[in-house]
């Protein structure tokens, strides 16, 4: 170890503020001053968040600085590193750094999926291996494929993409289908507003995903895999590419993996901006070089998937659970979560909440705990008004339903969806009509247009909601919205249109009073919607006295 270490915190917040650039600049400075033998400049994960600046720390002194520009970096370098003088105006005391959820492992957090995130350097396969990486693969290759599937089935793992289908069962269907070629696909097309867990998993621990996919390939008899990833996720793509190359180098991918005779190739395919591509058959169409329009089901992908061959499609989080289960056993996994939904869930906390970020907790956690315990409550001491759980296609609830436990069955039991694990908090300054309009605009924009109920239904819903938020709502508007929701839900072609009733009905029903208060009123009751000024119609004729 060199006498002086400069740590630069690079995470989702500080990257935006130029952290990587500062890191490179520091390295240049070290070279420029010929200090390569004395000073190490290292990239590290989040040290916490501090508004408006990147945190760097100088060891062994243990001093934190917040830098905003190259000039700041240079000043810290020249003063502190070269001359040993503290730069008081840039220094921040450690306790003032607001710790984000990623760093502050809240007491009850249970890390299975996020075990390595923030703990290892994602660009070095050695660090992953040092934490039992690829041990599960080695173990799996000594088992029969049926045994691997049986273990996953016994664990009760259900798909983390939103639908919650039992993973082991999906694998078994694919295993039983006979074909000359089978495929494993990872759905990393994370387009759900508010969800960014998959991105952080891929960027923090790419090898866990790769290992999970190889195991899936071995279990179902597939020799080729694809990661279909959002085109906008530049850094995830870069990190995954590097990780795949390293896995090939070490013999975890390619031919005769670990001398077992099993071959598996893995490639990355980019999405190009289409929310509907997250639907599994639409995703398959997209990889085949077509517009991402969903297929009619059945047949399902386990029998007729990519290029018409049997295909397993799982979400990033699902695959990452696999190596942990194989290594520790199904019984170990079942001790977390609930009977019908074992394991943990990675939630994204967003909106008006104090600590935004991701948190991993056992299934069955309540919405209240997520918002107040893990999220630190509502920002600015305001009152909580609306929570949307599960993403865009999730439910809007008021504070009366905060104690509902979240697992895959909570929607059926209590009408609150788990979905992809988004918890979006809106405080008292927000208007239900405005939120409904925003979410329906999203659906209108993302509808692929293939079927009428979804394409036209979303458009009509937007028009009606716009009317209400302009102050021109009519009496039967709420019933009309409900009817559109029901129609889209019952007659749409794919999951996108079918899920429209969930957000739309939940917000109209749970906040009916607020919708009604807009209709026939002079101004938005919350003061958010901009009502069109009414032109006063004068009645002609004789005034009544």
């Amino acid at each position, binding site marked *: 170890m060199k006498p002086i270490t400069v740590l630069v915190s690079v995470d*989702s917040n500080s990257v935006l503020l130029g952290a990587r650039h500062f890191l490179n600049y520091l390295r240049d400075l070290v070279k420029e001053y010929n200090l390569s033998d004395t000073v190490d400049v290292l990239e590290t994960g989040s040290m916490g968040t501090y508004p408006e600046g990147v945190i760097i720390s100088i060891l062994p002194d243990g001093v934190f600085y917040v830098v905003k520009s190259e000039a700041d970096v240079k000043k810290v370098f020249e003063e502190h590193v070269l001359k040993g003088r503290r730069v008081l105006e840039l220094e921040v005391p450690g306790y003032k750094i607001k710790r984000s959820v990623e760093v502050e492992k809240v007491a009850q957090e249970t890390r299975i999926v996020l075990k390595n995130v923030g703990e290892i350097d994602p660009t070095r396969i050695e660090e992953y291996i040092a934490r039992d990486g690829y041990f599960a693969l080695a173990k799996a290759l000594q088992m029969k494929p049926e045994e691997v599937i049986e273990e996953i089935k016994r664990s009760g793992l259900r798909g983390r993409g939103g639908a919650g289908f039992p993973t082991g069962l999906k694998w078994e269907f694919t295993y039983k289908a006979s074909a000359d070629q089978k495929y494993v696909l990872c759905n990393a097309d994370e387009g759900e507003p*508010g*969800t960014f867990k998959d991105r952080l998993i891929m960027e923090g621990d790419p090898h866990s995903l790769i290992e999970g996919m190889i195991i899936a390939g071995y279990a179902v008899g597939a020799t080729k895999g694809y990661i279909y990833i959002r085109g906008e996720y530049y850094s995830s793509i870069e990190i995954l590419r590097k990780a795949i190359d390293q896995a090939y180098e070490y013999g975890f991918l390619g031919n005769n993996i670990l001398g077992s005779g099993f071959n598996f190739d893995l490639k990355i395919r980019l999405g190009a901006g289409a*929310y509907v591509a997250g639907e599994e058959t639409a995703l398959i169409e997209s990889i085949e*070089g077509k517009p991402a329009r969903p297929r009619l089901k059945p047949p399902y992908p386990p029998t007729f998937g990519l290029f018409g061959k049997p295909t397993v499609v799982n979400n990033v989080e699902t695959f990452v659970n696999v190596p942990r289960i194989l290594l520790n056993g199904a019984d170990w996994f079942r001790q977390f979560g609930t009977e019908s939904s074992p394991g943990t869930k990675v939630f994204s906390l967003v909106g008006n909440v104090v600590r935004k970020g991701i948190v991993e907790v056992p299934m069955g956690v309540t919405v209240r705990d997520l918002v107040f315990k893990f999220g630190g409550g509502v920002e600015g001491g305001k009152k909580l008004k609306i929570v949307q759980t599960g993403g865009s296609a999730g439910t809007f609830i008021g504070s009366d339903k905060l104690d509902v436990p979240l697992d895959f069955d909570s929607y059926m039991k209590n009408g609150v969806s788990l979905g992809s694990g*988004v918890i979006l908090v809106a405080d008292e300054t927000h208007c239900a009509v405005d*939120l409904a309009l925003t979410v329906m605009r999203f659906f209108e924009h993302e509808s692929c247009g293939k079927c009428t109920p979804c394409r036209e239904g979303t458009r009509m819903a937007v028009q009606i909601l716009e009317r209400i938020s302009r102050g021109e709502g009519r009496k039967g508007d709420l019933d009309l919205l409900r009817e559109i929701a029901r129609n889209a839900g019952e007659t749409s072609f794919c999951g996108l249109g079918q899920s429209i009733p969930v957000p739309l009905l939940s917000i109209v029903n749970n906040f009916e009073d607020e919708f009604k208060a807009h209709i026939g009123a002079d101004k938005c009751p919350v003061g958010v919607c901009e009502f069109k000024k009414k032109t006063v119609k004068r009645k002609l004729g004789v005034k009544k006295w």
Partner: protein
Amino acid sequence: MRDVIVEIVRKARESAEERDILINTLHEIQKRFKNFIPPEAAEILSEELNVPLSKIYEVLTFYTMFSTKPKGRYVIRVCESLPCHVEGGREVVKALKETLKIDFGQTTSDGMFTLEMTSCLGLCGVAPVIMVNDEYYGNMTPEKVKELVDKLRGDVK
């Protein structure tokens, strides 16, 4: 131009199966021609891959990340999803439209900026977020929008 496309297709073929390279190839072409896919390039690609031109345009127009028209020097994508919306995204969108004096899908007359709507960028921890070309900017406010646009304009001069 043909050489460029042929080279891109050859590289894609090396790393992929014949039938699954269209979208990846289009990404490459778009990158090569700054931020759009010229009609000629689509025609050459159609010949090289032996895929009807209509099929290529079907894909091109379906996905929001592809463009058949040249865009401005800076493409500004702004997220209008709920997580950004509840954190003041609406004001940011308004400020962008006012500062640039254009609507979504339009390019400023000097060819500097194109404004686009995007769905979630996965950076909701620092909402509202906008993206300028490959760079992300978080915790946006109307004031920061004006500063950023001025700065980008100044960088060119």
